[in-house]
């Protein structure tokens, strides 16, 4: 990990931050813009020097870089490495950067087939390769999971980075937050949910509103996947449906595990 030069940020100079994106929908950056409207003191704490989605300023003297999106082309790697070289702290912003998210679904199919489907007769104009998280290309210092990210968690991560602490990303599953809210378990009303193995931090937002968790924040460390598959089987899912649940946001991980 690059030396944390932002420590001691309580001195006068604001920490300079930048936002970059690769293959993504930019929804996480929109959530960041949202958070700037609800947490006005964010801009008291940091100076945004590069944020294409929100600002015309494009300076390269940033200390913290937030990167949204998956890496899907060779030239992405070169750009990401330049960001890594400049940034003291590199943060993966959202599922696409963190786990490769839904972008990695294409890895389940032959690449030629996927390119033909998307680009048609001009498929050979686009030299895309298998989607990967940014951590597969460069070292990542912190992640903010989710599709999209949770704005409160984004603010907490910024705070932690400013004081040189490890960002408080939970290692426990969504079930924990769901139980603490006193929710009715969605399994008990005939739905299915990845909550027992999916990483928390979202406040169990989907089950709180009555829908099963899709696992957009990735899986917890050491998930009991066999037991989870049995739970989904008992809930009536076919083997294909069970695998779809595991690969929706975690295809990259599942494919890596097979290799």
């Amino acid at each position, binding site marked *: 990990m690059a030396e944390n030069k932002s420590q001691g*940020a*309580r001195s006068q100079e604001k920490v300079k931050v930048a936002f970059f994106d690769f293959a993504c929908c930019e929804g996480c950056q929109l959530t960041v813009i949202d958070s700037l409207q609800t*947490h006005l*003191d*964010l801009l*008291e*704490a940091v100076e945004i020097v590069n944020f294409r989605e929100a600002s015309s300023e494009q300076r390269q003297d940033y200390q913290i870089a937030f990167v949204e999106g998956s890496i899907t082309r060779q030239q992405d790697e070169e750009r990401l490495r330049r960001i890594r070289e400049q940034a003291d702290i590199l943060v993966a912003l959202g599922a696409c950067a963190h786990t490769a998210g839904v972008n990695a679904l294409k890895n389940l199919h032959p690449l030629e087939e996927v390119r033909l489907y998307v680009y048609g007769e001009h498929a050979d104009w686009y030299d895309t390769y298998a989607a990967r998280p940014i951590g597969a290309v460069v070292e990542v210092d912190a992640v903010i999971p989710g599709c999209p990210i949770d704005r409160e968690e984004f*603010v*907490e991560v*910024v*705070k932690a980075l*400013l*004081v040189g602490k490890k960002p*408080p990303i939970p*290692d*426990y*599953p969504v*079930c*924990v937050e769901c*139980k*603490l*809210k*006193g*929710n*009715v*378990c969605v*399994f*008990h*009303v005939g739905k299915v949910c990845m*909550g*027992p*193995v999916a990483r928390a931090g979202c406040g169990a937002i989907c089950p709180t509103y009555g829908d099963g968790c899709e696992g957009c924040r990735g899986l*917890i*460390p*050491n998930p*009991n996947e*066999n*037991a*989870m598959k*049995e*739970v989904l089987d008992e809930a009536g899912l076919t083997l294909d449906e069970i695998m779809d649940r595991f690969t929706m946001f975690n295809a990259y991980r599942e494919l890596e595990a097979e290799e």
Partner: protein
Amino acid sequence: MRLRILPKEEIPRMVQALMADYQVVGPKAKGPKFVFEPVADPSEMRLDYNITILSPKVVLQPPGERVATIRLEGKAPQVEPVVEVEPTVIFGAHTCDLHAIRLLDRAFSDEYPDGHYLERRRQTLIISVECLEPCDEHSFCKDMGALTVDEGYDLHLTDIGEAYTVHVGTEAGEAVLERYAAARAATDADVRRLNQVLSAKWPRFTHRLDFDAAELPAMLATAYEHPIWAELGERCLACGSCTNICPTCYCFNVLDSIALTQTEAVRTRRWDSCQLDEFARVAGGENFREARAARQRHRFFRKGKYLYERFGTLGCVGCGRCIRTCLVHINIVEVFNTIHSSA
């Protein structure tokens, strides 16, 4: 103290009157289940509930609570304790949950008295209700001696048909009854009716443990290496639900969150679970209860042995919440029966 009679139609009036001076937390419907939540209208309260998702522990040890604010200006951080509490009535607690609260009372006043819990407890009145029917097939309160209570409540209600009998447990309960409810003295006929109701209820509850729960500490003492723990470790999702919904679990984690201005911080605590991968992870990365099997064993030993050794009370009240919530059907009654049959 004398037995009183409270006609059922008086209950909404009593709740309404209490709401003027207290937060009233009672059982309310939530989808197909029930929860203990603040009551906004007496008609929401469902004294006919079977069991709630979380126990009324949520009043005394909330899932998350602010415990201190810390000022960072100046030379040393200044810690200011915060106790966010208001006078509260828990209305409609079942006796299993009352037994659990008595255990929490001991845990939070033992060795290091917990100011936050004890202040909430001091400002909380408990009106409990006698169970006359089992919640469902999962409760085993009768085995755990939690099917009735003789202390720990301020007022205790028993449904005798048109009315509730009211046992007064404390002076505070007596005062509340005087001030907020129109109760009358019980007649000989009321007492006879109460005795009929109580003697009729016991046969409705079945024993589910194959042995006397008093044997649990000694039984577990020789079961540390039992093969069942490895089997549970294979099945367990480590989702933490069994302990998070448990009325006698009281572990918590403490977290600090600093303001963006870096001039102040807020310290909160929230429930923690020994079933989670990170629970026993310490500085340096060592995890002294890394295997799910070891974590499951720890949970059952807490319930059947460790708390008994510490407080003289078993750590399980037989509410069955952990059985209902477990998606892989880990069943505390079956686990204890299996160990007992193989001893």
